[in-house]
């Protein structure tokens, strides 16, 4: 029973979170909200249904529609800037979806400050990556299909962030999973790609299970699953329920955002074309988990246990990703591990509650810029290097692809948290927030984030050095190279690819500063997520100083290892720790041993059981009747005297029974 106007007051009650979403119906410019989702969706449909006929212009159309969506998004943003307070939160009911008594599923959109951020990020980065892909995929015969999937992804992702209820969010949630599946497996003829795609989808589904159960719980608790009602009512429900919902949402977030223990798919997902890795597996989709938790702030605020679980997951993943990232030689996998780790930061921050939500989102956005930039850079490198991904076969590329080098370098500086670049502001705030949580857990989380910052610096420096500096290791043929091996001719990528990289580099450099300026980003989000400062046990400067020190340390170690020493072009034997890191800390082995193998045995057992047990029982019954028949028919001996005997016996029996029936 929350009053309608609580948003306005709730926005200012810093410790209480947003207090639910209360919105006005979309009108004016906002009434075009559906177009944000609709345009890319239209693109996907047109390209998929249109088939080959749309081959010549498919990529243009898709890019135009993505840009169109971006333009509409900007229009919304401008409109929103005009409004204030509750006016910034609008609802657009499109149609009633599946009404069954209490269960009223609607197709409705909700735009507020939080989703606005995402809309701009998704459509903005998305458009850039569309443009980039025009060049990157120029020679792929299925380019149209690729763009259709990209559009589909953008639409689904927008639906995810614009939905006004959890069920519709779920639709977008699975939609991005689908798009991700399609794009990871875009080169389906490669078995590894197909397997990776499947793995990603299935692990995501495990997470989706959590989201589904969370929605069930919401429905049984509140009789609804609209953000407005659920979040508004979350303070009234019991702790246990809210914890359950929170944990289930966390499970969902783990799946989608590749958090421990559902992280294993992300590395393999790099089988997809690089723009996909940039857009989906760095900038947007994988951050959906952060969105979900932030969006459900009230739920987590109502359940400290769930929050704790979130921070723990985040902390583990931060380190996990960072450690794995240190050992990967595949440039995309190294970046993927980094993504995992960075999202760990965000999740950790989101788990901190109102002191962290805004920073989680802020890091999400800055990360969106620089990680997308890094991936596009990696793609550009691969583009010039015959799709080689092994960094040990790179080296000294800065001369050959200067633009890539510069943009990648800026992204690199941003991610390690080089002062005054984007990552510096966002990551630093998260580290602060971790310490500000207070108590032992605050200290532990702070230490983890600091350590991870150092690791980040280490592995990113490693990537940078191995790729752009040092000896040109790609000139000699690798051991066991195929006969038709020829030396790559590294070259800079076309403008359609470098353009987006440059733009993203701008974002990597300036976005953080812009957001931090006057705390504008936090203020923007506060009406939705709430905000609280927490108590930092030390001065902000101390934290910043420590962070910078850790970054410097990590960079220095990497420098010593990879700039001062020759990088072997084949991975050398290494310590068990390194080996473990190279193998993703045995995550696949664990999954295989704990789930896959037993699952396979179970399946085989069941197949056997179905044939021999269930079917066998029925068959056995039939065989029993048949066998009985075969035996009993022998009674019919063919001798008339036997027949007479059976008659005589029968007569005696009938007579006896008749007499006995009377007695009884």
């Amino acid at each position: 029973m929350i009053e309608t106007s609580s948003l306005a007051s709730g926005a200012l009650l810093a410790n209480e979170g947003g207090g639910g979403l209360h919105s006005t119906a979309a009108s004016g410019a906002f009434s075009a909200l559906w177009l944000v989702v609709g345009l890319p969706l239209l693109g996907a449909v047109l390209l998929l249904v249109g088939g080959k006929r749309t081959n010549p212009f498919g990529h243009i159309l898709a890019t135009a529609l993505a840009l169109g969506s971006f333009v509409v998004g900007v229009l919304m943003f401008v409109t929103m800037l005009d409004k204030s307070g509750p006016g910034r939160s609008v609802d657009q009911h499109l149609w009633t979806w599946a009404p069954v008594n209490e269960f009223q599923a609607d197709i409705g959109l909700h735009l507020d400050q939080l989703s606005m951020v995402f809309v701009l990020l998704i459509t903005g980065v998305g458009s850039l990556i569309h443009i980039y892909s025009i060049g990157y995929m120029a020679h792929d015969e299925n380019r149209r299909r690729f763009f259709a999937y990209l559009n589909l992804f953008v639409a689904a992702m927008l639906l995810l962030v614009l939905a006004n209820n959890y069920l519709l969010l779920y639709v977008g949630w699975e939609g991005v999973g689908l798009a991700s599946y399609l794009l990871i497996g875009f080169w389906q003829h490669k078995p590894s790609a197909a397997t990776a795609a499947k793995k990603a989808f299935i692990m995501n589904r495990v997470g989706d299970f959590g989201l589904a159960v969370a929605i069930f719980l919401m429905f049984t608790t509140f009789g609804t699953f609209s953000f407005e009602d659920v979040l508004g009512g979350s303070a009234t429900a019991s702790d246990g329920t809210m914890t359950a919902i929170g944990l289930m949402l966390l499970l969902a977030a783990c799946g989608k955002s590749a958090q421990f223990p559902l992280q294993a798919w992300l590395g393999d997902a790099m089988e997809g074309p690089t723009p996909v890795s940039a857009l989906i597996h760095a900038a947007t989709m994988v951050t959906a988990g952060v969105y979900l938790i932030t969006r459900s702030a009230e739920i987590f605020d109502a359940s400290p246990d769930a929050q704790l679980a979130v921070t723990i997951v985040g902390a583990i993943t931060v380190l996990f990703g960072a450690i794995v990232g240190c050992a990967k030689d595949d440039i995309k996998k190294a970046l993927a591990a980094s993504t995992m780790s960075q999202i760990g930061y965000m999740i950790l921050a989101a788990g901190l509650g109102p002191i962290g939500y805004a920073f989680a989102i802020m890091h999400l956005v800055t990360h969106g810029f620089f990680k997308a930039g890094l991936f596009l850079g990696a793609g550009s490198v691969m583009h010039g290097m015959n799709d080689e991904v092994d960094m040990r076969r790179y080296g000294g590329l800065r001369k050959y692809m200067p633009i890539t080098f510069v943009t990648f370098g800026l992204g690199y500086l941003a991610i390690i948290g080089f002062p005054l670049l984007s990552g510096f502001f966002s990551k630093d705030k998260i580290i602060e927030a971790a310490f500000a949580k207070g108590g032992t857990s605050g200290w532990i989380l702070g230490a983890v984030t600091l350590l991870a910052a150092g690791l980040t610096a280490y592995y990113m420096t490693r990537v940078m050095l191995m790729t752009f500096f040092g000896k040109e290791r790609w000139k000699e043929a690798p051991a066991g190279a195929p006969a038709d091996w020829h030396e790559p001719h590294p070259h800079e990528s076309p403008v359609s690819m470098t353009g987006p990289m440059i733009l993203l580099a701008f974002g990597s450099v300036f976005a953080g500063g812009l957001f931090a300026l006057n705390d504008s980003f936090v203020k923007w989000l506060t009406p939705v997520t709430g905000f609280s400062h927490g108590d930092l046990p030390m001065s902000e400067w101390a934290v910043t100083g420590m962070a910078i020190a850790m970054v410097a340390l990590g960079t220095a170690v990497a420098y010593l290892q990879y700039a001062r020493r020759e990088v072997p072009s084949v991975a050398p034997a290494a310590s068990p720790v390194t080996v473990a890191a190279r193998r993703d800390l045995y995550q696949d082995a664990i999954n295989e041993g704990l789930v896959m193998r037993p699952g396979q045995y179970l399946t085989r057992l069941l197949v056997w059981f179905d044939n021999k047990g269930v079917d066998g029982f029925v068959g056995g019954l039939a065989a029993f009747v048949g066998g009985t028949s075969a035996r009993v028919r022998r009674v019919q001996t063919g001798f008339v005297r036997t027949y007479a005997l059976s008659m005589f016996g029968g007569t005696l029996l009938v007579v006896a029974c008749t007499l006995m029936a009377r007695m009884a």
Partner: protein
Amino acid sequence: MNPVNYLYLSALLFTIGAAGVLLRRNAIVVFMCVELMLNACNLAFVTFGRMHDNLDGQIIAFFTMVVAACEVVVGLSIIIAIFRSRRSASVDDASLMKW
């Protein structure tokens, strides 16, 4: 004499007949045993007629005799036919059809 004794006799004859059917192999003998059973019935009818003091039993006995005679005609013709084809009147030989 107590007429019930005739009933016992009748039952005895009936049983002997039935046993004969079950035990003897020769079709003719088997058939004669059936006739014996019919006659046992006749004896019972007559006895009961006497006990109930009406003539129905005796009349029925006549009917039975006629029927038995008809049976003989039919039965013997079948037995003879089968004897001609098989050169045997053993009922156990006629066991082509079974199971």
